[in-house]
């Protein structure tokens, strides 16, 4: 079980209704269903992943989050989860707006481009960083809009999006990120997990 999923699960109360956007093979949905009795739904583009979810008895809709979120009514879920895909959308702002419309609150996780190893790679080697959380090279990466934890903080302030909680993840360690420790956590977190809305 990925640390990230554990953090996401801890942010979500039991017995709620959750939409997992980009749900992959359904691992997170399964975990949420089993551990927290959460009523899950998934949206996933990849056919093989969709089949895996169906085989596990997890409700999943095959579709593209960029263009097909309109099918979910306003406030139809307690929470919407978006795990490490915000940066891959053409229009992440529009997607976020939609997620906030569908869910009463939204959990968004991002690979942190402000992580020190990422910064070092660019600063000292002059190359686009390739790390465990960012495994692709510049020409084949699906990531179009990389950002840092600080960037997403700023974005939420500018767009008047309420930040409820932010958790930084580095390997097995997690920490709460606040305005006061933002600079340092932005340097030492591989992932940022935001609870907003």
């Amino acid at each position, binding site marked *: 079980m990925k640390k990230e999923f554990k953090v996401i699960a801890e942010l979500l109360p039991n017995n709620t209704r959750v939409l997992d956007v980009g749900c992959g093979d359904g691992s997170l949905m399964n975990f949420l269903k089993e551990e927290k009795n959460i009523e899950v739904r998934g949206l996933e583009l990849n056919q093989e992943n*969709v089949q895996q979810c169906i*085989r596990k*008895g997890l*409700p999943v809709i095959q579709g593209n989050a960029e263009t097909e979120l309109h099918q979910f009514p306003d406030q139809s879920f307690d929470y919407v989860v978006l795990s490490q895909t915000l940066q891959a959308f053409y229009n992440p702002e529009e997607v976020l707006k939609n997620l906030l419309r569908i869910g009463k609150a939204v959990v968004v996780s991002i690979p942190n481009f402000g992580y020190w190893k990422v910064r070092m790679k660019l600063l000292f080697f002059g190359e686009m960083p390739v790390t465990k959380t960012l495994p692709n090279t510049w020409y084949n990466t699906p990531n179009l809009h990389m950002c840092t934890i600080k960037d997403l903080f700023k974005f939420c302030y500018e767009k008047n999006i309420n930040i409820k909680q932010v958790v930084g993840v580095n390997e097995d360690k997690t920490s709460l990120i606040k305005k006061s420790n933002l600079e340092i956590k932005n340097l030492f977190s591989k992932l940022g997990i935001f609870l907003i809305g």
Partner: protein
Amino acid sequence: MPSLAGLFFWMNRKIENINKIIITKPLKLDCGKTIKNFPLAYETYGKLNENKDNAILIFHALTGDQFVTGTNPVTNKEGWWVTAVGPGKAIDTDKYFVICANVIGGCMGSLGPKNTNPENNKPYGLDFPVITIKDMVKAQESLLEHLGIKKLLCATGGSMGGMQLLQFCATFPDKAFSAIPIACSSSHSAQNIALNELARQAIMADPVWDNGKYVSKNVQPKNGLAVARMVGHISYLSEKGMQEKFGRKLQEKADYEFSFNADFQVESYLRHQGYAFVERFDANSILYITRAMDYFDLSKQFNGGLVEAFKNQNTKFLVISFSSDWLYTTKENKDIVIALNSSGADVSYSEIITDKGHDSFLLNEPEFLKTLKGFVDSMYEKFKNEKRI
């Protein structure tokens, strides 16, 4: 080779021996008329288990019948969904109890226009009442009652079968634990009504049809019916699929004949499909069943709201569409998903990428069959657990 009329007569005799129930309860049809004491023919595969939690109801499409798999005893041909249903198949008859009934209006043993009208002891012909998808579904619900099945593990169907399924779920919520509508629509589109009208006009233009009175003369308007079937066959394929399968290939000849014989393979294919069909299907049944499809509009039944139709559904849905299907498009299938979502129903959706058009659901499409199997098996586990609790 027996004559066509003889063959038809011989087939009608075989139909006498197939499974059917007589539904005594009066059924008030949407058109206002009532039918009672009418036959509903059906077939079952596999065994109903002790807990009665392994029953799957399949609704057939326009030209289908109750013989889903194995050998159809009337035509001696393979069942129409042998790719998906049978021992070890996606819908495994070693594990599940599969039921399929011939729709009313059809011609494989259920009450239809070739049956005798008790009022004048002549075949109904056009005196047969116009039926709807809802009428078909209500009749089949009586069969479930007869078989003692309170709740189905799953109900499924493609094309018109999918339309019956949507109607079934809306009319009898909670009768199915899960449902798989395949390549269908919640209301018949203008294009589909137009194609059905083409089929009907072809039949009606055949002088043998004689206002539907051909039955008492033991003949079939085979030319009209064959054309009707050809129209259908074109619509079941995709442009790309047809091009790949036939292209401009000639039928067993080196060059054009400079005649109107079937020079091209695609022509020969259509003629074969058209004339093979007249041996097993009644022309008037095509008129009645296509009409039922055209009248199908689930949102109209629920005052314009498809969401309303699916309200309070506990059924778990899996909607499947095929990318190259231009008869029941991905868009139409997605509209069903959106409505189910909006009503809060448990819904999954998958679009199978294929060039094989609407026909895909009847073919050996591995991704489709895998999805079907995955869903049915996982639903069985859930249903068993739910019953235990």
